[in-house]
């Protein structure tokens, strides 16, 4: 039987925080299967800590396969999973996030309705939540100005989109659904610590956008991300001192054509 979506949950050192994510994951899998979508459910643990390994073990029945790897590089892990799975589409989810339960069905519906097959799909909204906001919790409908929790509305590469914005900061989270063949065509770059280059998702977004691959959002879907102490969406990479791999020709300004003598 052909697989519609291979959904891959990445885990590393989430520890106890993997519990709510796995419960959310269980819900999304149940809901998607109930809608008649054929799923291949895969977990991958990259050099996990003991707690994370134990937590995932408690949910082992959820998975068709759990891969244990020691690549210590999320980009390489994703590439390995793309080769290991069989679905027409691949959806990547990260092990400390939560997702609306219809993410997979809604994104598959959007993908199937899209005339251009090679499209990357993102949730429309991302809720960055900070559990520490409980200290400034509002009893009304207006959140405290001190609350860190906020909602990001992701963008589609519509005609008004200026792809150069992506050179300054990442615009989409790692939560994507895309054809497996597209992932094989555009593998994630590996971490290059010597040159300070990494940030697999940002780099992959740059590569695909510069190659003309559309990125679109799926209406009425939300991805929920726990804010880490260093912040979110690229902040952790900045804290690590990393910058993304830039594809050939991706720069803020066009380079002047120079003669061979000048180039030397």
């Amino acid at each position, binding site marked *: 039987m052909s697989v519609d979506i291979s959904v891959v949950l990445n885990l590393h050192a989430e520890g106890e925080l993997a*519990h*709510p*994510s796995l*419960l*959310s994951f269980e*819900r999304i899998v149940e809901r998607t299967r109930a809608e008649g979508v054929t799923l291949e459910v895969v977990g991958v643990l990259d050099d996990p800590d003991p707690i994370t390994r134990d937590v995932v073990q408690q949910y082992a029945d959820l998975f068709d396969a759990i891969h244990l790897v020691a690549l210590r590089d999320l980009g390489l892990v994703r590439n390995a999973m793309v080769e290991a799975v069989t679905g027409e589409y691949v959806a990547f989810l990260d092990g400390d996030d*939560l*997702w*609306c*339960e*219809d993410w997979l069905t809604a994104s598959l519906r959007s993908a199937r309705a899209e005339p251009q097959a090679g499209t990357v799909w993102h949730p429309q*909204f991302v*809720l960055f*939540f*900070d*559990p520490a*906001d*409980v200290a*400034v*919790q*509002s*009893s*009304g*409908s*207006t*959140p*405290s*100005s001190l*609350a860190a*929790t*906020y*909602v*990001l*509305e992701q*963008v589609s590469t*519509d005609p*008004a989109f*200026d792809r*150069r*914005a992506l*050179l*300054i*900061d990442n*615009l*989409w989270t790692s939560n994507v659904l895309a054809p497996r063949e597209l992932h094989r065509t555009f593998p994630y770059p590996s971490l290059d610590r010597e040159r300070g280059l990494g940030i697999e998702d940002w780099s992959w977004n740059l590569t695909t956008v510069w190659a003309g691959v559309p990125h679109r959002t799926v209406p*009425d*879907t*939300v991805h*929920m991300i726990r804010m880490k102490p260093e912040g979110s*969406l690229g902040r952790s990479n*900045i804290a690590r001192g990393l*910058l*993304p791999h*830039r594809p050939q020709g991706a*720069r*803020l*300004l*066009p*380079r*002047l054509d120079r003669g061979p003598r000048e180039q030397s």
Partner: protein
Amino acid sequence: MKRCRRGAARLRIPHHARRLLSLHADGDRYLSENLDVSASGSDPFVHWWRTGAEEGRRMPGVVRVECRGGMIRASSVRNRWRALLGRDGRRWRLEPDPDFALEAAFVRLVHRHADRRAYLAANLDVRAADIEPVEHWLTSGMLQGRRMPGLDVVLRRPEEREGWVRLRWLGQDVLVRPHEPLPETIERAVRVQAQFEPGLLAAGPGTVGSLRRVDALDLWDRDGLDLAGFLAAIESLTRSASVVVVVPELAELASLDAHDDVLAELAAPAPRDLLLLVTRQLRRDAPREVRTPAGVVPRAAAIYLLDHRRSAEHPDDALLARILHALDPDAVHGFDPRSASSS
């Protein structure tokens, strides 16, 4: 300055000024705050127009009034108001200001969508000063980078964006978008997941629909960078940037430890294959020119990063690194005398 008699003044308040005051100002409150005016029986708008502004009296609701070059518009600078009044005396030549309708529309839109209570809750100094929140935000809060709940506003970004309305305020283009509450389907989805992770509702169980909203392209909100304006400024100076020179302030070029050819190119007229980036100074604060061993570098030769930042905070090194990475020059000449490091 030549003063006119009060009776004549009552007759000579310009029509456009009265229209503007009627739209924005609170004459009753002016009278309640100025009992001498109230006791004299003067018309509050006429009194403020002819004498009150010069005397430093505040007209509640009025942001600024000036008459210059046949235009009338809102402002908050009383000094300029006085000077203009003195220059023109009683002979006003007023013509419709094309900005006026856009500014009035902006004010109307702000009044309609602003969440005053949330603004006061977030700005305790405004609440303590008992200032009307919309008035505060329009006159100063917006320029101070304060957020008005209920609205998204972008200044200094010229390009049109879907779902945003372009209006004018304080002589600038303003893109404004009334704050759309989060769709109910999303609120519901978050509540469902909160059974697994209560932290999702940490800001308040009832706040999900009114959480702060950020558009992914609002780089202002994320890095404080007006990317479109920054790129436009760069493109006005160079089509290429194979060399980028970074200095905190323009005057420090005089002591820049760089190759002579770099300095010579800095002093050369445009177009150049070099970009001069000033990171800790506004253009208006830079000297008109700087003398270097290789020639004079004019103020206009540089891009001023702070001009494209939402706040006057200096960009952190990480943002600068990303900008340089995105520019992709062949060489970067960096110089910061504060840290005595150069590369």
